[in-house]
């Protein structure tokens, strides 16, 4: 029964998001569609951080790989959004495998530092080739390259965005729900709890961590690709460090239940940041204050404390 209750809770938020859709004002539709895409990214980050206990500060690179893979494909190869989506996911998968190979060889704070350096390298590369990537300013994609274009005879732009985001979110939630019940999911958690013990039971934990990074990369890359293909924009800002640290906050704010936490946390943080958007670059300040506050709160939240301890301590 506990499992059933968890399943109901898991799918209740997407169900609510589907039900309230007809009564939403235009701005709320726009805002929630964005948050749903970011939540897919949050789930991807949670697989890496919350399940496997790896505190990456480089996931912006995976998001950006998805975004550039999809966006640049529509500009320089073919304006076909579906193959662009696949290209984006493939690019993120490739980058996550590289980052995963690195992460299986280092531990503790070095994992955080190396992921940060890897992401910063991608960011600088994007700036360096700004004739191709558009650098910080970015590039606006053609309308016919977006996923909403084929639906335009029937649905308005914001409605089709909302629909796409919701469907993607439901797929992402289902994936995490299934993963958390599966043997693989249990093994991921075992890696977080005691990697050495799992190794002593005959498991190859390096492979498990690589797999976790790859899955995380597919999620993050999908979110990035949809960012490009729904909002017809790619820009180096998405590869920046802020986009790497935000999911940490989302996951910690969301709570211990991985099936709903990332979505809940992402919505909460973005709603608060949106309310503060009138302030001078309020969003960044909210994230900064949020991190400090959650650091204080972590002392009282035993799950967050354990998670942070596991992911930042040196292996002795």
């Amino acid at each position, binding site marked *: 029964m506990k499992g059933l209750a968890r399943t109901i809770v898991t799918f209740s938020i997407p169900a609510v998001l589907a039900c309230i859709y007809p009564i939403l004002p235009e701005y709320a539709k726009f805002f929630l569609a964005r948050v749903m895409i970011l939540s897919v990214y949050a789930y991807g980050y949670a697989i890496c951080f919350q399940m496997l206990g790896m*505190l990456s*500060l480089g996931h912006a690179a995976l998001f950006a790989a998805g975004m550039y893979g999809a966006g640049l494909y529509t500009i320089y190869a073919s304006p076909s959004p579906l193959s662009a989506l696949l290209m984006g996911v493939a690019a993120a998968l490739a980058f996550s495998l590289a980052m995963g*190979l*690195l992460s299986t*060889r*280092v*531990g*503790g*704070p*070095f*994992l*955080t*530092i*190396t992921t*940060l*350096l*890897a992401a*910063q*390298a991608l960011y*600088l*590369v994007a*700036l*360096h080739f700004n004739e191709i990537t558009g650098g910080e300013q970015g590039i606006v994609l053609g309308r016919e390259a977006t996923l909403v274009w084929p639906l335009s005879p029937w649905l308005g732009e914001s409605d089709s965005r909302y629909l796409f985001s919701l469907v993607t979110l439901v797929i992402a939630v289902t994936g995490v729900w299934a993963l958390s019940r599966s043997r693989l999911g249990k093994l991921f958690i075992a890696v977080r709890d005691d990697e*050495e013990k799992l190794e002593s039971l005959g498991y190859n934990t390096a492979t498990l961590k690589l797999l976790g990074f790859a899955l995380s990369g597919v999620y993050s890359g999908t979110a990035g690709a949809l960012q490009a293909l729904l909002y017809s924009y790619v820009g180096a800002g998405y590869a920046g*460090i*802020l986009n790497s*640290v935000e999911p*940490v906050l989302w996951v*910690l704010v969301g709570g211990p239940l991985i099936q709903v936490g990332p979505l809940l946390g992402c919505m909460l943080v973005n709603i608060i940041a949106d309310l503060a958007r009138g302030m*001078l*670059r309020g969003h*960044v*300040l909210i*994230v*900064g*204050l*949020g*991190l*400090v*506050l*959650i*650091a*204080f709160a*972590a*002392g009282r939240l035993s799950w967050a*404390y354990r*998670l*942070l*301890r596991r*992911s*930042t*301590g*040196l*292996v*002795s």
Partner: protein
Amino acid sequence: MIQLEYLGLAILDGLVNGFSIALIASGLTIVFGIINIVNLAHGELYMLGALVSWVLVSAGLGYGSALIVAPLVVSGMAVLLNMLILQRFGHEPGPTMLATFGILLIIQQAGLAILGPAPRAISPPFNPPVEVGGFSYSGFKLFIGLASLATCLLVSVIFDKSRLGTLLRAVQENRLMVGSLGIDAGRVIMIGFALAGGLAGLAGALNSPVRQIHFLMGFDALVASFVVVVLGGMGSLRGTLTAAVALGLLESLTALFLAPTASRVVSMLIALSYVAVRRLGQAGGGSRS
């Protein structure tokens, strides 16, 4: 074919940059060494040093005052940071890392509010061209390099020889045991933060006349420091200096062929490969813990 003169300039420039990076990174190393945490806000302390210098020089006080006031102010900031926030959760690595990242963003935004979005500049108080081995070089940059090197060596000597250094190293070895010896570990950590802040503030003040003073300059410094501490070994001051000089030389030599961003990417890739090969932080890896 590159002319020999450019090569000489590049080497000199690389050394000066290397010493500057060493000055910034040694604070990161000290803090990591004594409490085993990565202070992600360390780069912002450097930015604050430059910011304070800009404020002072703009207010008509001379650059000389900046060299004294900026390290003191930033040192105070670091102590405050430790006292008000990091100390509250006993320097537990996880919460500390998160909190320092939050502080990074907050200081950055404060920098934006004070400096504005456009980069600021102050002019060097003196800048005689100096003849070095047949070509001329900026006298002020030479001053930066020498001052940075001297400070780094001084800190290194303090660490190795003085009672303070012994205490810092003792806390680094075993915080609990130090407590049982009647030494106040909290105060030693505080001194470590003060030192780290002072060094970052001094680096900011020294570099403010030759760099663009911008609210994002701290993060670049943090990334460079990470490359250095990864290559030089966390917690080792001598390793930091060596690695910083190597990084400075590498970046200025590759900058002869590549754009500056590309040469930074090259050095980051070298650091990443080194980390992977040495398996840092893993059981049996080369980390000091």
